[in-house]
């Protein structure tokens, strides 16, 4: 079945797909977005149910292997210490993301020049700054200006409450003389743009039934649909096709909600399927011209997978910390140990995040992102009654360096519900990361004690959180050299001149901050580059 050709075809309606669609609106080109998931309705958000916590272990799990819904693709992570997590729907993983919104820092774009590791980005912080601002305006961002860990900028809305937990930890950081700052969040601290402010429900992973979180289902998509961007849901792309005489992408084959395979032709194809979904799609798009997968002449598609490996330390305090009141992951962030310090035994660094504490069921089952239930019996009672309410914790979120052996390939057996080969992850923690996490755990313990914790709980093992593959980067890295990168400095494939990639797979390095504000700023930057180069776009 063949559908009418369009000018721009975007695959994936998540964070990056929505941002580039918005950027291209003013071109008046015909834009179509194909999304494998549905458009969620209000009734689909489980936080309105009495037993809302259960959804975290079923249809609203962050792990597609647990959800197992038709629109999900399974992921084989047997050879990884971290499993990728996501959400597949209009809004993508911003449906269940936690709204933490730090920017990358100037040094993140220059790790090779500054520290001799990773690769420099073809763009720098200053170039990206106006696109961060633009994206913040479209998303709705709260925070406190004047953070000494960044070049000056001020979020539009005042910070969300830090709460008792954040205030307590801040005092610990002050005691030690360390940097901390109220978290920047894509969560509304005030009613804004027709959207309701955050009600401090604390279950941001269940989709934010208030609409206060800056998921693109609430921020970009209403604007885009009003402006006439066509969104086709239940449409799963199986391959991107190329014309063998021109080497240009001609469009895609996709499985529609009618169960049929459709052909959709397009002048320009944009891939926005996240750091695992994008290489999977390219590797599945084999042809005579690209026998190893599309845009993969140098074999780098799927290589250099980076997460932000993390671990946590919790302190038990004298008073209840009320950690479940307020957005789940965001209170304060310390970047004291973010930049390289030659006196340490690792390069680059990490952030110390004060997540809030989670709800009782999730705590009893081991915590969010972990699968390790607390003991049963008398000890269970003791922990839930006398430890859980008094907890405040710090999470160590480390920079991951690009290493080619960490990769996304295609699984030889596993497929999704349309029979399309599923991704397989091969990933090992680097030695630099291990040292960083150990350093972070020690600092976190000191800070918690300085904040007044009477006891510190830490695992004392080398394990990182299993379901911490929420940030997926590096698998189609950008760069100026076609031998060492998949896309050029403005997101265009070196091999296929009308193919663009806009999600986190283009990151040459990962920084140690949550990536989405940077992913979207990059998507806006790429959109802007397309507009300014429109006359010579395919040269």
């Amino acid at each position: 079945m063949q559908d009418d050709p369009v000018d721009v075809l975007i695959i994936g309606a998540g964070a990056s797909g929505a941002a580039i669609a918005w950027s291209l609106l003013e071109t008046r080109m015909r834009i179509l977005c194909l999304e494998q998931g549905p458009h969620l309705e209000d009734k689909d958000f489980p936080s309105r149910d009495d037993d809302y916590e259960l959804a975290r272990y079923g249809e609203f799990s962050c792990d597609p292997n647990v959800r197992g819904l038709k629109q999900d693709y399974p992921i084989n992570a047997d050879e990884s210490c971290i499993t990728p997590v996501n959400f597949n729907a209009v809004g993508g993983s911003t449906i269940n993301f936690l709204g933490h919104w730090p920017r990358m820092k100037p040094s993140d774009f220059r790790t090779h020049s500054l520290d001799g590791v990773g690769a420099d980005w073809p763009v720098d912080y200053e170039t990206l700054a106006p696109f961060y601002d633009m994206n913040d305006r479209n998303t709705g961002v709260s925070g406190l200006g004047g953070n000494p860990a960044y070049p000056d900028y001020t979020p539009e809305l005042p910070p969300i409450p830090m709460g008792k937990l954040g205030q307590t930890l801040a005092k610990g950081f002050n005691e030690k003389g360390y940097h901390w700052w109220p978290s920047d969040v894509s969560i509304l601290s005030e009613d804004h743009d027709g959207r309701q402010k955050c009600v401090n429900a604390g279950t941001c992973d269940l989709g934010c039934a208030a609409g206060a979180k800056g998921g693109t289902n609430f921020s970009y998509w209403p604007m885009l649909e009003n402006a006439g961007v066509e969104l086709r849901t239940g449409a799963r792309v199986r391959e991107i096709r190329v014309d063998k005489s021109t080497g240009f992408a001609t469009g895609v084959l996709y499985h529609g909600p009618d169960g049929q395979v459709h052909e959709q032709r397009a002048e320009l194809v944009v891939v926005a399927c996240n750091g695992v979904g994008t290489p999977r799609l390219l590797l599945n798009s084999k042809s005579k011209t690209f026998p190893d997968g599309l845009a993969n002449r140098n074999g780098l598609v799927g290589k250099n997978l980076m997460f932000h490996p993390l671990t946590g330390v919790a302190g038990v305090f004298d008073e209840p910390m009320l950690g479940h009141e307020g957005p789940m992951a965001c209170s304060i962030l310390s970047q004291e140990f973010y930049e390289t310090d030659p006196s340490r035994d690792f390069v680059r660094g990490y952030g110390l995040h004060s997540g809030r504490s989670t709800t009782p069921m999730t705590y009893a089952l081991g915590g969010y992102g972990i699968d390790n239930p607390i003991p049963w019996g008398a000890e269970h009672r003791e922990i839930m009654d006398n430890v859980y309410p008094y907890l405040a914790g710090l999470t160590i979120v480390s920079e991951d360096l690009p290493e080619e052996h960490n990769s996304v390939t295609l699984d030889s057996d596993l497929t999704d519900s349309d029979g399309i080969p599923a991704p397989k992850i091969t990933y090992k923690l680097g030695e630099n990361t291990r040292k960083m996490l150990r350093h972070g755990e020690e600092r976190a313990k000191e800070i918690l004690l300085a904040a007044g914790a009477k006891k510190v709980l830490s695992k004392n093992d080398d394990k990182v959180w299993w379901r911490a593959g929420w940030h997926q980067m590096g698998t189609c890295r950008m760069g100026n050299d076609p031998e060492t990168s998949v896309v050029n400095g403005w997101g265009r494939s070196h091999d296929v001149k009308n193919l663009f990639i806009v999600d986190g797979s283009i990151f040459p390095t990962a920084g140690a901050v949550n990536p989405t504000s940077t992913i979207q700023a990059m998507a806006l930057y790429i959109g802007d580059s397309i507009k300014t180069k429109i006359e010579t776009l395919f040269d």
Partner: protein
Amino acid sequence: MLNETNRPILDAILDELIPPSEDGKIPGAGALGVAEFLPTANAYAPDAAGSVRTILDAVPADFVALPRDEKVTALKRVEAAHGQAFETLVRLTYMGYYSRPDMRPHFGVGAHPIHPLGYPVARESDAMMDELTAPVRARGKVYRDAR
């Protein structure tokens, strides 16, 4: 799956997995009726019913009548012999117990569905924010120039 004979045994097992509080104010998982959640729990464990059956078959027939310390010893033996099924039962017990809205307030968490009400939390005053951030601002810039 559950009948008049095995239900009291299951309740007794559940009351050991999550026992009542010492003052009796917070019920254990058996008394709370978590057993009723288990047969419906297939959405959360591929073999929920099978795991429950395995554990019921493995405990001594007189489990209900045993003194508490012997119940715990018996369950530890079952855990060692049937690790997977036991872990499934533990996980499902926690789910059944803590998904009960009336349990949440015992741990300081609201019984209400979390949206639309959420929790009232006041933003810190400007004065408090100024005071807390003063040492951080006083240290000045902590990022590296990259040019």
